[in-house]
């Protein structure tokens, strides 16, 4: 299975200044300040389950920008209702990347409840029009342009390796810094 960082680096390389990136709390938010991201970034450090609806609000407000949301499987399991909300609002400019590693990585690597959730099936059943499983970086490089061009909400399900020994940098930006820098 693919580690997190190559996925994140591949995604960032495909973003443009016209995009907006919204990250869930945890490893993605902690890695992002160490990458060169061409798009404005709003990174959460708390509030699980918030990345997708936050990105949805941005997408509805700014139809001229493509908004990319990064969400974890633990966060989405907390609030799967948002999939139906996204499907109902149906913005053509919202792509979600769901990072599935089966663990609450930020809080110490505890496993999620042990249900074999079919994330792609769940999203499709909720009405998300464009859903693709993404097993590796090559697949992400192929799937992300398709998602961007789908003309409808898209969700890519990334199978991410969980490595309890991964050295993830700590949060390096305060919320007020993230908020102040975020201009779209």
């Amino acid at each position, binding site marked *: 299975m693919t580690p997190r960082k190559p996925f994140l680096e591949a995604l960032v390389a495909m973003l443009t200044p016209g995009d907006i990136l919204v990250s869930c709390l945890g490893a993605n938010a902690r890695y992002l300040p160490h990458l060169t991201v061409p798009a404005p970034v709003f990174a959460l450090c708390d509030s699980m389950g918030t990345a997708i609806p*936050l990105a949805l*609000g941005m997408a509805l407000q700014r139809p001229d920008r493509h908004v990319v949301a990064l969400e974890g499987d633990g966060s989405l399991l907390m609030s799967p*209702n948002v999939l139906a909300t996204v499907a109902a609002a149906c913005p053509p400019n919202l792509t979600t990347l769901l990072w599935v590693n089966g663990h609450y990585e930020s809080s110490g690597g505890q496993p999620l409840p042990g249900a074999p959730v079919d994330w792609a099936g769940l999203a499709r059943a909720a009405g998300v029009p464009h859903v693709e499983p993404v097993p590796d970086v090559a697949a992400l490089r192929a799937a992300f342009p398709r998602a961007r061009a789908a003309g409808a909400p898209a969700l890519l399900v990334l199978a991410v390796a969980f490595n309890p020994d991964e050295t993830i940098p700590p949060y390096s930006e305060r919320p*007020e810094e993230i908020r102040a820098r975020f201009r779209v």
Partner: protein
Amino acid sequence: MDGARRIVAGLEAAGVTLAASVPDTWIGRLMQAVRGSAKIRAVDVAREEEAVAIACGASLAGGRGAVLIQNAGLLNCGGILAGLVELYRIPCFFIVSYRGDWRDPVYYHAPKGRVTEATLSAWRLPYAVADRAADLAAQVARGVTFAVESRGPFVLLISGEDLQ
């Protein structure tokens, strides 16, 4: 003009561009009036925390978001108020149906009514109870302006009577 339309006029006057909502009987009536607005995008959501995040997203992207929910839903929102609205200092204006206060005829709302203002105070949320005898549109616009200028939440509690 009925109270619901006066509230919408206040939202429009304050520059609100998006209203995210989970309905109850009263908020549902208000959202019907919102849907008649050419200036406000009505967004139907499944749970109240989503409404908060969507409204905040609209505000961060250059618009003004509002949240229209019942007080039961507001009680769900403690985490996101702390972890998003307050932490990142995002304007977020709420219109909340005040179920269970002395004006509400439905008995099963009473427990929510008893804790609503106490919870708002405990969470240190600025709020007001709408006064239908005064200018409702102006109360709404003042609340939105307070949220924008304070870069935080403001809650306006309404009753079903206020929509008449």
